[in-house]
């Protein structure tokens, strides 16, 4: 299938109809309040008052503006996001979170009003963000479901044996569909079996050939065949992954940390798409340490820098390979946090701000409704911006709408969206328009 693996051509990977969604999950609950900060005087002053010692100074922000919502600034560790936003390649989605249906402040105390299950619980929210469902009724990931839909209804990836749904380092629920199983790949792990590196080489070859016979001969049992097929896919993928390892050189270096390494590997795999015959792929990568109950200023500096630099290098790589309009990266996190500090940190929240980056993004804007800090300062429950008086944002946009917008860009039709996100029918707007 692949010849000349030493010199893979990447001239124009946009030949076939290829798209990729790349989910970048910030584990722990990122404090969006300090990722993007309002800079208009009244809002900034209310922010500063509410945040106390955790407030960023105006001169610590990288200014950006939204035509209707005003002036804002990115956290000082995110100059790359300012640059991407200002060049129209990044957008912010404000105050998005798990919702069953549009929710007002007063709804929270109504006995029969449906709220997402186990809000503010890490383990539950991590699952819900990946299933796209605000309860435990769904056990597939919405990334996997998007790939299912593209394969089953639109025949993408039909000729390809390369995984269509890939998570970095460990299996992610996001990638599991009903028909597509996620594959987890570790950067640097080319799926080689140590057992086949045997001395002398003739012994290794003999073992490999024996294994090949075993795992490709139909057994008469469907489960045995399926198990053998997984190992057989690894054997087939090994030379592809190993060959691509050195064949790609990135003009803009990636950070050497975990997230940088993961996104670099994803970029490498994306650059292979035309060789592998994949048309639609989803990827999942992640970074931890966002649960800043204490030491937030220092920890968040590290976190925001890691996300900003890695996404920036990743976007640059997609430009280099000519696939920037075909790849959209976006962030997710367990939940947002309280505006009000708790010691040197913050507590679990609900709504959060997220980033979408890519050549197809209608960037340079803040989508959704950015909560007014003045509604927090003079706590105004009727404004429905906050869930409580500690500055937990009450989402004005649902995760279902966030996902549906990305799914539609990915290729899902209008009529497919409710099936991908079961609570979507509760929301008037299915496509938020950021991509």
């Amino acid at each position, binding site marked *: 299938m692949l010849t000349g693996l030493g010199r893979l051509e990447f001239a124009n990977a946009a030949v076939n109809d290829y798209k990729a969604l790349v989910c970048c999950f910030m584990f722990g609950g990122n404090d969006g309040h300090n990722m993007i900060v309002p800079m208009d005087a009244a809002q900034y002053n209310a922010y500063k008052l509410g945040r106390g010692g955790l407030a960023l100074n105006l001169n610590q922000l990288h200014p950006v503006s939204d035509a209707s919502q005003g002036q804002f600034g990115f956290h000082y560790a995110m100059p790359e996001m300012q640059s991407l936003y200002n060049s129209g390649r990044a957008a912010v989605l404000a105050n998005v979170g798990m919702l069953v249906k549009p929710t007002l402040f007063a709804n929270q105390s109504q006995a029969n009003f449906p709220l997402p299950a186990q809000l503010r619980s890490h383990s539950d929210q991590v699952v819900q963000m990946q299933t796209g469902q605000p309860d435990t009724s769904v056990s597939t990931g919405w990334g996997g479901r998007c790939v299912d839909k593209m394969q089953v209804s639109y025949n993408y990836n039909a000729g390809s044996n390369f995984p269509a749904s890939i998570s970095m380092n460990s*299996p992610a629920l996001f990638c599991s569909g009903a028909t597509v199983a996620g594959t987890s790949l570790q950067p640097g792990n080319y799926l080689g079996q140590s057992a086949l590196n045997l001395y002398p080489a003739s012994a290794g070859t003999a073992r490999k050939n024996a294994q090949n016979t075993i795992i490709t001969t139909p057994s008469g049992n469907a489960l045995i065949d399926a198990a053998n097929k997984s190992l057989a896919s690894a054997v087939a993928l090994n030379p592809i992954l190993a060959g691509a390892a050195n064949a790609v050189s990135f003009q803009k270096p990636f950070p050497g940390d975990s997230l940088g390494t993961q996104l670099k590997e994803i970029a490498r795999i994306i650059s292979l798409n035309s060789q592998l015959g994949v048309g639609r792929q989803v990827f999942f990568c992640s970074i931890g340490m966002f649960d800043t109950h204490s030491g937030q200023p220092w920890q968040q500096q590290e976190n925001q820098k890691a996300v900003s630099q890695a996404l920036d290098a990743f976007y640059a790589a997609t430009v280099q390979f000519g696939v920037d309009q075909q790849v959209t990266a976006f962030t997710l996190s367990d939940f947002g946090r309280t505006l009000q500090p708790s010691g040197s940190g913050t507590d679990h929240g609900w709504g959060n701000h997220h980033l979408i980056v890519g050549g197809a993004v209608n960037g340079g804007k803040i989508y959704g409704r950015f909560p007014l800090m003045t509604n927090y300062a003079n706590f105004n429950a009727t404004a429905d911006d906050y869930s409580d008086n500690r500055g937990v944002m009450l989402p004005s946009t649902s995760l279902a709408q966030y996902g549906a917008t990305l799914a539609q860009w990915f290729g899902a039709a209008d009529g497919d969206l409710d099936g991908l996100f079961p609570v979507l029918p509760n929301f008037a707007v299915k496509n938020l328009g950021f991509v």
Partner: protein
Amino acid sequence: MLPMPARHVAGAKTFLGQTLPAGQTIQQDLDGSIDIIFNHPNVGPFIATRLIRALVTSNPSPAYITAVASRFNENGLGVRGDLTAVVKEILMNPEARNDNPGGTFGRLRTPEQSIIGTARAFNWGMGAASGFNYLLVYMGESILTAPSVFGHYSPLFRIPNSGGLFGPEFQIYSASDAVNRANFLYQKLSVYPFNPAIQPYINIAANSQALIDAVDNALLFGRMSQTLRNAIFNSLSSMPDNNQRAINAIYLAAMSGEYLVQR
């Protein structure tokens, strides 16, 4: 769970076609609700299907499910919900004990099950789990740390491109999971200079037939297929020494679908 009197409605409640009378305490309502659920006719088949999938086969026949569900409904002594009777039926039912099971019978062993099964077959110790749990993380089954109430994988996962066959454990058996499992196994086998636990196999390794028979008995209870047998046999003569001959036979068998799928 804590009772919240301010949220407790005192009137009668109808639920799943049954009524909880008015004026009960929270505890009485809770107990009554659980009884209503417990007595619902769906519960037997639901529990039967989940337990059969966990213990025996991912795609049980309707007759097998019915037999197990019936045992849940009534254990022969007038008692509903006797799990001992249920498990006994699951394991003793002819479908579980069929020496020639059909083409869709069986279930994939989870990483823990195949590692423990292999370790038991060859009688080797695993050491403290904390030493290798990180490897199980890469295989999708971090010990005692399931990511959701569903466990490490969805009980409803179907094998891709199989015509809809259930295979929940396949949700964490992608290409990389397979290689990680294989490399974990090989790491155990290829202790330098040799793994003492496989000494008995090294001792007989010069005799290919005896070696294969021994591996067959240990791992596959004498049911090794001719394909597997021949493949191992044909590769043994290329191995550089008896140590690698033994490792070869064990590795190829333990990573074959024949072993990984419990039947």
